[in-house]
């Protein structure tokens, strides 16, 4: 009874009441906690599960292994996710924030609900390589989990539904809406774009925003941006079975882009310079190339610097350093 190690003993109750904050410049979210009442205990349990490597086959990989807070919950310096048994996945781990506004998950949009998203990573042989039943069995015998489930859901019975709902209480609360861009848009005191940032913003609206639509910086569509003539990854068509979706991927958000590299579904670009140069000169005539990219996005050197300056205004340091979200 007293054998559990110190850091297992209990989760310190969060000092502040956990709440789901909708930034004033954001639209109505898709996920709203109507069927998953947000509580401090539920959030704390979800966070503990998120950072617990016992959710993987060999106890080596947690959700947090590939979703690191300092990288806006993407995976620093990893082209693709690195799972159990040293297995390399085929896609780049996406950042996790503003998920409550997202309609589908993963690069191909295969998962349709935030609550069921962890199942994909848990069962993928190259990610966590296990199954939810094994996790339930393990948690039942691991203090303090039964108590934590009781605090969160009123009973110490552990079910897949409670595991998934508590993780969603953590992941859906991850809202990033306090970047300099947001403060400028909300006309908060003292926040203005510099002249370079403003020039970048105007260029961005002209050349990028039709897909990376404000304020979430994605229109949630699936497109090919011409990385290869023939994509090595089927992308969206694995989900829909439709040929015109071959080689298309979810348009990613650009918020916190300064810290979420490497970029693209396969993490092929390590810097924003490489990304912008791709749009300037590297777009290939892929079969399903998005019509807006037929001629690429011509950008000269100073335009690239301006756009980069603007993109860095999308960095939300309050989010990246919020201690409520780190492994405690």
């Amino acid at each position, binding site marked *: 009874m007293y054998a559990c190690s110190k850091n297992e003993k209990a989760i310190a109750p969060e000092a502040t009441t956990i709440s789901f904050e909708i930034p004033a410049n954001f639209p109505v979210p898709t996920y709203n906690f109507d*069927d*998953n009442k947000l509580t401090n205990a539920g959030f704390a349990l979800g966070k503990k599960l998120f950072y617990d490597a016992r959710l993987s086959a060999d106890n080596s990989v947690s959700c947090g292994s590939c979703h690191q807070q300092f990288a806006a919950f993407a995976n620093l310096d990893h082209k693709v996710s690195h799972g159990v048994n040293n297995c390399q996945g085929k896609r780049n781990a996406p950042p996790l924030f503003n998920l409550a506004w997202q309609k589908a998950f*993963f690069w191909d949009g*295969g*998962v*349709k*609900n*935030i*609550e*069921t998203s962890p*199942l*994909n990573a*848990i*069962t*993928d042989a190259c990610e966590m390589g296990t*199954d*939810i*039943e094994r996790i*339930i069995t393990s948690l039942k015998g691991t203090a303090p989990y039964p108590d934590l489930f009781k605090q969160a859901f009123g009973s110490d019975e552990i*079910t*897949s*539904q409670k*595991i*998934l*709902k508590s993780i*969603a209480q953590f992941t859906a609360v991850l809202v990033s809406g306090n970047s300099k861009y947001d403060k400028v848009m909300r006309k908060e005191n003292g926040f203005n774009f510099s002249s370079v940032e403003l020039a970048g913003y105007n260029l961005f609206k002209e050349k990028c925003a039709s897909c990376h639509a404000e304020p979430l910086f994605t229109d949630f569509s699936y497109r090919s941006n011409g990385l290869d003539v023939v994509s090595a990854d089927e992308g969206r068509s*694995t*989900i*829909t*079975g*439709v040929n015109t979706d071959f080689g298309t991927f979810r348009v990613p958000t650009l918020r916190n882009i300064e810290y979420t590299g490497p970029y693209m579904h396969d993490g092929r670009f390590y810097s924003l310079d490489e990304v912008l140069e791709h749009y300037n000169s590297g777009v290939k005539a892929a079969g399903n190339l998005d019509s807006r990219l037929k001629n690429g996005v011509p950008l000269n050197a100073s335009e690239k610097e301006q756009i980069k300056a603007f993109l860095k205004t999308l960095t939300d340091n309050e989010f990246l350093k919020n201690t409520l979200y780190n492994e405690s």
Partner: protein
Amino acid sequence: MKTSQYLLALLCPIILLSSCKKSDDEITANPKSSFTIEFEHQVNGAVLALNTTTYKNAKGEDFKINVFKYYVSNIRLSKADGTAYLVPESYYLIDESKSESKFITINKVPTGDYTKIEYTIGVDYALNFAGAQTGALDPINGMFWTWNSGYIFVKLEGTSPQSTAANNALTFHIGGVIDPNNTIRTFSTEINAANPLRVRTDAKPDVHFIVNAASLFTGKTDISFSALNFTMGGANSVIVADNYTKGLFRLDHIHN
């Protein structure tokens, strides 16, 4: 102030009564009772036995079945006058390897004579997009796709010498709700008006369905296991769903 309170007190029961009436418009609420459904699994008239017995498909190819399970949901009962009762929250996973799952009890059904029964083979569109579920829809039941989230509606696994897959495997996981590969199908059967489903407070009838596992492979398109032995959603799953729509279930009899 006082008058309005009296008025409110007067109005309340009226509101309650009228709302009560509205929700049960289809069929008068009381009294209620229950009935059971038995799903008897067969393969072209022979008893379904997992792992051991060899059966033949419509092409004359031998096959064995190791796994046979499927969802039945949104059960709807109709009377001769056209009024209907949708059994709320009706999601059932029927699994040949779990004999108790082949008998389901439907409770709180308004009494009456029902002449038609309908249900979804699989899980309705909305629940394929919903959050984490429990009970029959719990992902631990092995009927949930994690990478393309949604339910497997019908799962048949087995072997056939004709299968070109590894270990001669047959893998038929039918599901998917998005056009053009939507596999949600509805089964509907009329009940002989001479012997309707008589739900009574003093009698609990049994409805007996014969379920033919071989219906996956014939009906609209005869399937050869050399050509189709693996499907997990997509166009080939539609071929299988179109086959079993009519042939999977047959109302055999009702014990009133």
